């Protein structure tokens, strides 16, 4: 019995997931044509070893937001490309959450090189929070270049994730109260700098101020 169950498990694990995995949530919420388009993208993601769940979520998000089928399929495809870019930029072995956070940042205008820089500064730990803060700073109105430079610099100086979250919260509060996003970020960064060791210690991140490294422009959400 034990042998048989183990054997069946091994054989099933050897199968391509696409032949087994049909997400019931998609079955019940997408029409046939959209489901087929999304399924092709999911198969591609599986074949490339990319996380599939964010793609399913994106399709479901489109359904809940009453988006047209073509738009849902396009959004899922676009996310697939961002996930791939993110994984490559965060190499060698990024966690799925980091890949997703990187894809979010890319959607808001962060560059591939910005993600590479973050990985260089924090080669082993999770980048989900720093990338989330970067994304949200841009969403608050801070330019991509400025937000990337500040988050990278704070990371380089050893800022903890909680400090980055607090920074983002405060910037948002100041912006809501009428301050300009860049001024709010400057003020809070000065406050955080006061409690962090001096920067410039990390190696391999000298390209932070390079216009070619951070060429995301000043795109706003």
């Amino acid at each position, binding site marked *: 019995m034990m042998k048989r169950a183990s054997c069946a498990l091994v054989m099933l694990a050897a199968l391509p997931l696409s032949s087994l*995995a049909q997400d019931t949530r998609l079955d019940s919420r997408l029409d046939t044509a959209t489901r087929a388009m999304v399924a092709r993208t999911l198969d591609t993601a599986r074949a490339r070893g990319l996380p599939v769940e964010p793609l399913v979520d994106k399709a479901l998000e489109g359904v809940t937001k009453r988006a047209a089928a073509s738009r849902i399929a396009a959004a899922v495809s676009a996310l697939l490309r961002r996930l791939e870019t993110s994984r490559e930029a965060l190499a060698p072995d990024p966690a799925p959450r980091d890949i997703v956070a990187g894809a979010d940042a890319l959607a808001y205008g962060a560059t591939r090189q910005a993600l590479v820089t973050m990985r260089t500064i924090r080669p082993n730990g*999770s980048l989900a929070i720093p990338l989330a803060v970067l994304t949200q700073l841009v969403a608050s109105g801070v330019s991509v270049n400025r937000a990337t430079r500040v988050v990278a610099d704070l990371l380089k100086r050893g800022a903890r994730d909680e400090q980055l979250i607090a920074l983002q919260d405060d910037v*948002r509060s100041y912006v809501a109260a009428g301050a300009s996003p860049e001024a709010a970020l400057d003020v809070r960064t000065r406050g955080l700098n006061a409690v962090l060791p001096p920067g410039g210690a990390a190696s391999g991140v000298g390209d932070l101020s390079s216009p070619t490294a951070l060429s995301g422009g000043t795109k706003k959400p």
Partner: protein
Amino acid sequence: MANQRFGRGMNPVERALASLRELPDVDREAVARVVVAAARVRAQDAEPNEDDLLPAAIEPARSGRVVAVAAAAVILLVIGGGAVVWRASRPYPAASLPSPVATNSPSIPAISAASRPDATESMTIPTQFVYDGRARRVALVGDFNGWDEEATLLVREPGSSLWSVTVPLQRGRHVYAFIVDSTWTTDRRAPTSRDPDFGVEGSVVIVGRP
């Protein structure tokens, strides 16, 4: 009989697949219950290589319970269309389980917490959502519950206009909204997020450590 039906000319893999296809359908609620039960056992048996599905299940010295879980997993792989493998390998195990499980079962997050060296990084964190306003029904939708309007309902505080629900979330940035009496509503106390894909603004929460 079974040999006849599944064909003597098939190789072992084809024969196993053919036999598995013969299994009957099972309703989704039952599948979800078994997934949760299997997940709990996995959490209790968590080892450093928890990310790998197979090693614990095929190790010969394992107890009968592991075999039972493995057998259940095999059945689920077939009747659930691969849902077990998919869920076990996905980054957000707790939040996308059926809602009653996700919101009421604090033991589920331990699966991911035990699976990596940076256990706290993978831990889910109970996160409360509050809506203030008159309504007949308030639901929470977001990237943590499949944007399902039926999955996570807020409960009204008796005698007040405050509605709330607490959901375990992975660390990171999450986009969400309230569906208030069928109307998409952002959380006015949270930052908003533009939506480059569908053009419908949502609210954002960045979840850190508890």
